[in-house]
């Protein structure tokens, strides 16, 4: 997973590329580099954050070039492994996002023909391959090279002798074209372009694109021209800035009520997937990765409770390589970015098995939305913080909407019940806001519990996956080792790890498993663990036997994952802040994982 930006125009390319690159830093940040074609080809790269690179940059003249920020997959983060990579002549520069699967055999072949490799990256084999095909036309050389390559990629290439041209190509990694007057752009994601243009073109899989200051041409890998309509981006740059908050993550948590409002907007009266969720659906399978997978797990409980049909959740990386049984569930694929490689693979697999597919994505026009039969967008707005927050909640809201529609269409929900559930959904922004208003209390609790080395999260039923997500948030941004268990599983092993030094976060809201949770909390307290509970407002019993309680409003339990998630997100944020962690850019992680 990496970020790339390309430019061909009249202005000096360097400041534009660096600015764009900074807006893609969420995609990866262990090394960065830039290639500019001026009077000659100039390449500078280094390990570390983009600011690192910027600090040591000489002024590079030229109005064509590209830049790259990397998140290592092949070869450690280092200066030599950073992109761009050069061919033997030093005339072709290449940056690549994705993985070349057959790089080892390509490398062997090319080394046999006398090419000299300097890095351990898969990418370098591709640039030498292009060199071997080069005969005065970079575009043609790239096209030929791509016929020999297996894997996923978004690439950008320039040649010292073709000074106004950037060649790009995409397969399973995102690439978008920005169109300006007398200048054109390429990037992994829209934020890099927003300062310069809101007119974009999406490049699809197995397509190539050439930009010059004058124009953009898209062709397929056989060289046949492709026509593509431009789209206008509806959100703007200020959505991508911090606006007075210390971190993007905090800003985005505070945008949760708005995200819920937007996701619900106009859909309670009429969900746009009307007709698609028809009566013949007998079961649902939810497929996703990471945080979206946790939303999928909650979705299983939501759909079974509200729509009363069997549902299951599976990891995309497992589903796509598993043997499909003969049943044909509705497959719901969840991905914030809509670019998660495994989820895209799973969507293809679901189609191959003959299933109906519904995508739940946040990014409009993303790859997932083109792989599935129908898409329901979470309208959470752009999310920059690497830790997903408001988009997770928006995914839950989308799942409530789907389950309501399924329940309605299958006749499992009566009119009064449907009406009541809709009013309760309407109240969800308030439930999230209630928790946000308690941020100060949660900060004080973070101070109390934030020094632990290990922490456990427990929950049951719909709040078991919420515990998993709470633990994931803590791990990924505060680097505290955190594990989550279904509370009933404690006595089957994990209890052995619980001591007075391992605080336990227990989700004990007013739901059908409340009494069971109380006895599980009792088991933990017997091992002297400090217990921080998340409970329902007005529960007078809970504070008597746990150390601290974060309260969530008294709403029907099936909706409790929303406020509980927000509470655990704030808790993780505050712990990470106290520990001085790089909250928006945690080490070794990237926002959307477009490699497998």
């Amino acid at each position, binding site marked *: 997973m990496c970020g790339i930006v390309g430019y061909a125009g009249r202005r000096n390319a360097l400041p534009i590329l660096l600015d764009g690159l900074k807006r893609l830093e969420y995609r990866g940040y262990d090394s960065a580099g830039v290639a500019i074609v001026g009077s000659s080809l100039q390449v500078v790269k280094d390990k570390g954050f983009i600011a690192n690179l910027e600090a040591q940059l000489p002024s590079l003249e030229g109005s064509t070039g590209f830049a790259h920020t990397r998140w290592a997959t092949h070869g450690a983060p280092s200066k030599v492994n950073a992109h761009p990579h050069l061919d033997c002549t030093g005339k072709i520069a290449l940056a690549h996002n994705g993985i070349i699967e057959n790089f080892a055999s390509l490398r062997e072949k090319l080394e046999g023909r006398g090419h000299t490799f300097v890095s351990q990256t898969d990418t370098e084999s591709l640039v030498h391959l292009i060199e071997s095909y080069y005969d005065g036309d970079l575009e043609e050389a790239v096209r030929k090279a791509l016929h020999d390559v297996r894997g996923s990629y978004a690439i950008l290439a320039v040649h010292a002798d073709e000074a106004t041209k950037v060649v790009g190509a995409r397969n399973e990694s995102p690439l978008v074209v920005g169109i300006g007057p007398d200048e054109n752009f390429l990037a992994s994601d829209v934020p890099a372009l927003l300062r310069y243009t809101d007119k974009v073109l999406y490049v699809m899989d197995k397509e190539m694109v050439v930009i010059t200051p004058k124009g953009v041409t898209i062709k397929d890998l056989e060289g046949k021209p492709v026509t593509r309509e431009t789209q206008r981006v509806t959100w*703007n*740059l*200020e959505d991508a*800035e*911090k*606006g*007075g*908050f210390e971190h993007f993550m905090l*800003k985005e948590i*505070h*945008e949760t009520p*708005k995200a819920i*409002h937007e996701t*619900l*907007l*106009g*859909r*309670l*009266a*009429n969900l746009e997937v009307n007709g698609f969720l028809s009566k013949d659906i007998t079961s649902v399978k939810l497929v996703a990765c990471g945080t979206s997978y946790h939303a999928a797990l909650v979705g299983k409980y939501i759909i079974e409770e509200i729509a009363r049909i069997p549902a299951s959740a599976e990891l995309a990386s497992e589903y796509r390589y598993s043997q499909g049984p003969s049943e044909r569930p509705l497959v719901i694929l969840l991905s914030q970015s809509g670019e998660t490689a495994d989820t895209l693979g799973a969507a293809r697999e679901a189609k191959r098995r003959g299933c109906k597919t519904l995508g739940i994505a946040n990014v409009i026009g993303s790859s997932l939305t083109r792989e599935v039969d129908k898409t329901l967008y979470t309208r959470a707005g752009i999310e920059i913080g690497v830790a997903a927050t408001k988009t997770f909640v928006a995914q839950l809201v989308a799942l409530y909407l789907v389950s309501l529609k399924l329940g309605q269409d299958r006749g499992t929900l009566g009119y009064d019940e449907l009406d009541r559930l809709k*009013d309760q959904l*309407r*109240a969800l*922004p*308030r439930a999230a*806001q*209630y928790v*946000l*208003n308690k*941020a100060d209390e949660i900060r004080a609790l973070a101070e109390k519990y934030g020094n632990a080395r290990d922490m456990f999260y427990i929950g049951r039923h719909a709040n078991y996956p919420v515990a998993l997500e709470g633990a994931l948030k803590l791990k990924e941004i505060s680097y505290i080792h955190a594990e989550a268990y279904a509370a009933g599983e404690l006595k089957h092993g994990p209890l052995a790890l619980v001591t007075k030094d391992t605080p336990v976060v227990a989700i004990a809201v007013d739901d059908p498993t409340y009494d069971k949770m109380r006895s599980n909390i009792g088991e933990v307290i017997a091992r002297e663990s400090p217990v921080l509970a998340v409970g329902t407002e007005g529960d007078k019993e809970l504070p008597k036997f746990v150390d601290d309680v974060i309260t969530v*409003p008294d709403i029907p339990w099936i909706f409790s994952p929303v406020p509980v998630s927000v509470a655990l997100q704030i808790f993780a944020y505050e712990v990470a802040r106290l520990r001085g962690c790089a909250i928006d850019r945690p080490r070794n992680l990237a926002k959307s994982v477009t490699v497998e």
Partner: protein
Amino acid sequence: MKAVILAAGEGARMGPFTASVPKVMIPVGNRPILEYPVQALVANGVRDLVFVVGYRRERIQSHFQDGKAFGAKILYVTQTKQLGTAHAVIEARPHLDESFLVLNGSNIVDAPFVADLLAQAPKPAVMITESEHPRNYGVVTVRGKELVGITEKPTELISNLINTGAYALDSRILDEIEALARDGKHDLPSAVSALAKRTSVQAVRTEGTWIDALYPWDLLRLNAAALKEVPQVRAGTIEPAVTIRGPVSIGEGCVIRSGAYLQGPLAIGPGCEIGPNSVLLPSTSLGKGVRIGALTTVSNSILMDDVILGPTSVVQDSVLGSGVSARAGLLAASGPGDVQIEGEWHSVPQVGGLIGEDVEIANGVSVAPGTVVNERARVESGARLRGSIPAGAVVL
């Protein structure tokens, strides 16, 4: 020219409506009060704004962000202790130039008001206006067009000219603020009065708009003023046989059911649902996601986000906070009422119910004029409410 906007206060006199938002973020005409001064400043080319924030500052920041969406560039300064308006100016000082404007974020002002203030700058000036209730404000004494002094909440009536809290100032004010702070005084009017003793401070009367809200029922006045400029907007689904008169703005994703009668000025936020044969009368604002059942009448009222109002209800001259949910047959009709705020009683000639956020009301509840229901209270079926219901209370 930069401007400081004071937005740190809680606004305790707003009763239940500031339980989770600062006063400046209370919506009137479906926009937070604070948007109006910001818009008036930007219209005059004052784009560099310093917001002094404190109570629930996240609500302000997540709405305004860095200000680009409003044509401004906003810097946030957090006033950790709400010592007073003068202290707030000191906190903002490092971000200001030699001369600057100071405005109160909880007043509605228009562009001509700001233009009149700007015309004085960089000379020190204070904007003044006539008031029917000068006792609630700082009363100003003037000599010609110059300020003599400001007397806070006078016991005897000196004049009906009051201080609007909008100033053009320069760095000389800082000496006065520091001198007063040594005596434990932290309010800006005292510092401006002291400055007037040393140098000329213009007292400017304006044809522009300045409206203040001290108490919840004042919000209705602000709302009506804000709705004067409501644009005609039609979005969402409008079923057949809906009557719409006057300026009515209907947001995205709304559904207006058959037979509804909408008499503008009205602002209806996104995602609202108006039931069949319901009647919305002038100077009413509905926030986001409001649902109104069949055969319900609402006039001159503010219904904030996510309010649910059941069928056959009557709501007049009322303010319903975010998330209020009332089942069938809520009766909050208007009349003269005595309202209790912060322990003090006020006689209000025309008022309905003042119902705080997340209050839950069951079927067939009647609310006497001037009743305050504080946030998160729960009211059971058939109750008759009067006086002041405490936060979180259960009324049987």
